[in-house]
């Protein structure tokens, strides 16, 4: 029994931090309707600044806590509200999710750009009266030190204060009212802007607090370590149906405690210890998604005043004047021909590699156009599916000596099969529920299959050799074969997506995206539609993964971690998720921008900055749901149309008055 408590008690501080973030998630969701994935990023930012101050600047814990958690974190929350989420309609689930995902990806990448790369390993506790190295007393022979005491004290104080605020104050009541529609409560005389801003400030404070509390428990901490924190917190919040603070708290603490108990009892050599234990929070989350009917009806709030929003604009291609349209189509063909000829003749090898990588990534991103842009299903594991394709083909090449083209097709089929399994598991989930399920799937793969050296080749990955690609001269990778192969595969996938879009299935998918209730009421089998679109998108992502692997000559689990799935969504949303060209522009744009950034001083660390740039583009989703690039294209079109084809332009835009007429 003493053993049991000896294992259980050290889990309490972990559980407390999970509980704080879970409650923060519940609070933001309840008060603003936003499920804030960025919490992980915010927690990391607070811990980063806190540790920077204590470690590099020699500050003591308390003033560093005041700056990083009491001042900085709420300010970040207020900025999120003021500049981003305030502009998004309550009913627009996708916009809210995408913006918070962009922030989750963008914040940890932005910090090294601002402060330079840091090695953070010497963290302090926040209160001077709790010394982390002093054991104050023992409970059942478990030593209770300063970290333990400060974490539990802070958690209890914060949770009691918050519960009182929501239960017993007028402000709590107003926060709950603002969820449905902040515009509607305004009509009742409530200053809803202030109420929601306050909710953001409080919840961001909690994110910062959790980050700083958790920092000393990790040795050298990275932004990825905060992913575990987020998943545990999301799982706890899910069991509370994103509503109940006591249940979220209890489940959070329980996850922490059960993890350390299992760690204590399971033999360290067993598969359960190495693979299943780290995945415990994901299993808890998946169980909530599968078994709690309440998780199926998330996002059902609809703003009663949503109808006063203006309709979203049509795509640039759909709103062009016919002459302009013809001109642009011809220009595209010329551009395409010049590109192909350049790639085959004078293009420097470095840039040929950049464009090849871009074409391969475009194929992966095309799967997001299909599943999210056309079918409206927010899938956060397309990168994982690409990884399934990549590793399958690489393994088949390794063990059976199979040609990568044949192995690639098998890899794509396996990726499609994995996608179908996840689709079947999440048949009843919509919007946020589906996003969480696919995220959990991505994280599960990261912790299990992709973490297994026998599958993914460990840190160095599985390297490819030319012989696996067959002996034909066509597969001479010193020439342009990779370019031709990538172009052919991408062209095939683009054709497939376009054919689906203009056919019956595409129309049914658009109907499903518009209203699932009405689509089913017309006789459309939603289950089948979902399975079809998941399978197709999974297969395309798998093919893309194979192309990336052939290009890089190595399949590495770091290429396909969950964070890349999130970055992929951010990339496509930035350029435009509704169009095929959006995916291609995102794929090529990502590598071209990365390459251009390598010419900048090293401090700007190309890899980080390119993600920051795209994340910044994606947060613009609030203003331009069609994608920033798509918006710019439409604006550019209109300017050129006015200049080149004024007659057609003014016929299409009757509200504008042509110069020189008596309007």
């Amino acid at each position, binding site marked *: 029994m003493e053993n049991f408590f000896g294992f259980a008690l050290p889990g309490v501080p972990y559980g407390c931090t999970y509980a704080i973030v879970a409650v923060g998630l519940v609070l933001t969701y309840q008060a603003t309707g936003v499920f804030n994935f960025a919490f992980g990023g915010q927690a990391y930012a607070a811990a980063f600044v806190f540790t920077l101050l204590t470690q590099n600047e020699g500050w003591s814990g308390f003033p560093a806590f005041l700056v990083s958690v009491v001042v900085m974190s709420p300010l970040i929350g207020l900025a999120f509200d003021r500049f981003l989420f305030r502009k998004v309609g309550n009913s627009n689930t996708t916009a809210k999710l995408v913006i918070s995902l962009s922030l989750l990806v963008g914040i940890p990448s932005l910090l090294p750009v601002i402060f330079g790369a840091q090695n953070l390993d010497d963290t302090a506790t926040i209160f001077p009266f709790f010394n982390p190295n002093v054991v104050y007393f023992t409970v059942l022979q478990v030593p209770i030190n300063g970290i333990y005491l400060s974490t539990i004290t802070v958690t209890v104080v914060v949770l009691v204060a918050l519960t009182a605020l929501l239960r017993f104050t007028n402000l709590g009541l107003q926060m709950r009212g603002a969820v449905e529609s902040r515009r509607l409560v305004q009509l009742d005389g409530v200053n809803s802007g202030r109420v929601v801003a306050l909710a953001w400030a409080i919840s961001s404070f909690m994110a910062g607090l959790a980050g700083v509390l958790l920092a000393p428990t990790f040795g050298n901490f990275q932004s990825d370590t905060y992913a575990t924190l987020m998943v545990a917190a999301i799982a706890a919040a899910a069991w509370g149906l994103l509503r109940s603070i006591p249940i979220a708290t209890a489940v959070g603490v329980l996850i922490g405690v059960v993890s350390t108990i299992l760690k204590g009892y399971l033999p360290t050599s067993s598969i359960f210890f190495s693979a299943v234990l780290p995945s415990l929070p994901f299993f808890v989350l998946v169980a909530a998604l599968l078994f709690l009917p309440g998780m199926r009806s998330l996002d059902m709030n609809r703003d009663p005043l949503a109808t006063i929003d203006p309709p*979203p604009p049509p795509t640039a291609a759909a709103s062009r004047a016919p002459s302009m349209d013809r001109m642009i189509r011809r220009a595209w063909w010329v551009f395409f021909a010049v590109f192909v000829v350049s790639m085959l003749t004078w293009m420097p090898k470095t840039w040929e590699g950049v464009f090849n990588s871009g074409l391969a990534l475009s194929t992966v991103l095309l799967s997001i156009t299909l599943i999210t842009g056309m079918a409206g299903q927010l899938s956060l594991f397309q990168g994982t599916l690409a990884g399934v394709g990549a590793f399958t083909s690489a393994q088949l090449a390794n063990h059976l000596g199979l040609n990568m083209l044949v192995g690639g097709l098998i890899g794509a089929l396996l990726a499609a099969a994995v996608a179908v399994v996840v689709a079947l598991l999440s048949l009843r989930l919509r919007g946020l529920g589906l996003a969480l399920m696919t995220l959990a799937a991505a994280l599960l793969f990261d912790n299990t299959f992709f973490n297994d050296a026998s599958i993914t080749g460990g840190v160095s990955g599985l390297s490819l050799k030319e012989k696996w690609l067959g002996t034909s001269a066509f597969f001479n990778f010193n020439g342009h074969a990779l370019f031709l192969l990538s172009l052919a595969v991408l062209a095939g996938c683009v054709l497939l997506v376009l054919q689906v879009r203009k056919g019956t*299935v595409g129309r049914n998918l*658009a*109907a499903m995206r*518009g209203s699932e209730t009405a*689509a089913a*009421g017309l*006789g459309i089998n939603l289950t089948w539609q979902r399975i079809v679109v998941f399978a197709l998108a999974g297969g395309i992502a798998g093919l893309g993964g194979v192309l990336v692997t052939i290009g890089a000559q190595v399949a590495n689990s770091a290429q396909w971690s969950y964070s890349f799935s999130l970055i992929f969504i951010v990339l496509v949303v930035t350029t435009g998720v509704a169009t095929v060209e959006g995916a291609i522009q995102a794929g090529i744009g990502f590598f071209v921008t990365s390459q251009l950034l390598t010419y900048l001083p090293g401090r700007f660390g190309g890899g980080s900055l390119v993600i920051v740039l795209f994340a910044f583009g994606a947060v613009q989703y609030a203003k331009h749901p069609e994608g920033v690039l798509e918006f710019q294209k439409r604006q550019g079109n209109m300017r050129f149309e006015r200049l080149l084809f004024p007659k057609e332009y003014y016929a299409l835009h009757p509200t504008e008055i042509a110069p020189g007429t008596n309007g």
Partner: protein
Amino acid sequence: MAEQALLSLRGVSKSFGGIHAVHDISFKVRAGESVGLVGPNGAGKTTLFNCVCGQLRFDQGEIMFDGTTLAGIPTFKRARLGIGRTYQKVEVFTDMSVRDHLMVAERSRCGEGRLWKDLLNMSKVSRQEMENVEATLDLVGISSMADTSVNALGLGHCRLVELARALAAEPKILLADEPSSGLDIHETAEVAAVLRTVQHERGTAILLVEHDLSMVGEVVDRTVVMDLGSLLAEGTFDEVMANPEVRHAYLGQMGAA
């Protein structure tokens, strides 16, 4: 008019927690007949619609449609059997043009879209399909907005699009849930005319939930009244309106007196 019941409900009940939203409801709709389903707010009319269409699972009783018992059949299969509906809270396909709304219905009427046909370019819109769609657009009077995206339409027009979409699937019975809500007096008259035409020319049975009683009186052959989840009265429109219990349900003590 055929005597055979197209839709028959027997002892249908549905509760949410402890609340009996629909309690022991039985009535029939014959093929080609128009029946009004009226009652004050909270009477359980939309819940009953949801039970018939499969959006809700009923707890007790039996619903038969065209000789098939509906329990356990998913919504999309019930639609394919010939049950069409419009919704109290408008459900249109955002970002889609009016014509495409009808095309989705036209195609789903003919069965599931096959992926391989799309990939082989074999699912182009046929002349016959186009003519059917145009005819329904004309019938409902929304041809002028065929290529407009529904995002740009007001509530009233969206209701007409919903009606046209339901009719494009050529249902055997149309469950219309407050089709005149949000429409002005002229548009309401147009909807009433469309419903009568559909009933008389296409032989479509209609089950109409509506608060505008004058419209109900104009359209229906028979009226069923519900209150607090139970069936209150059944008969011709004039008969049920003269019923003191119905007047009490609608108007309180004053109506009964």
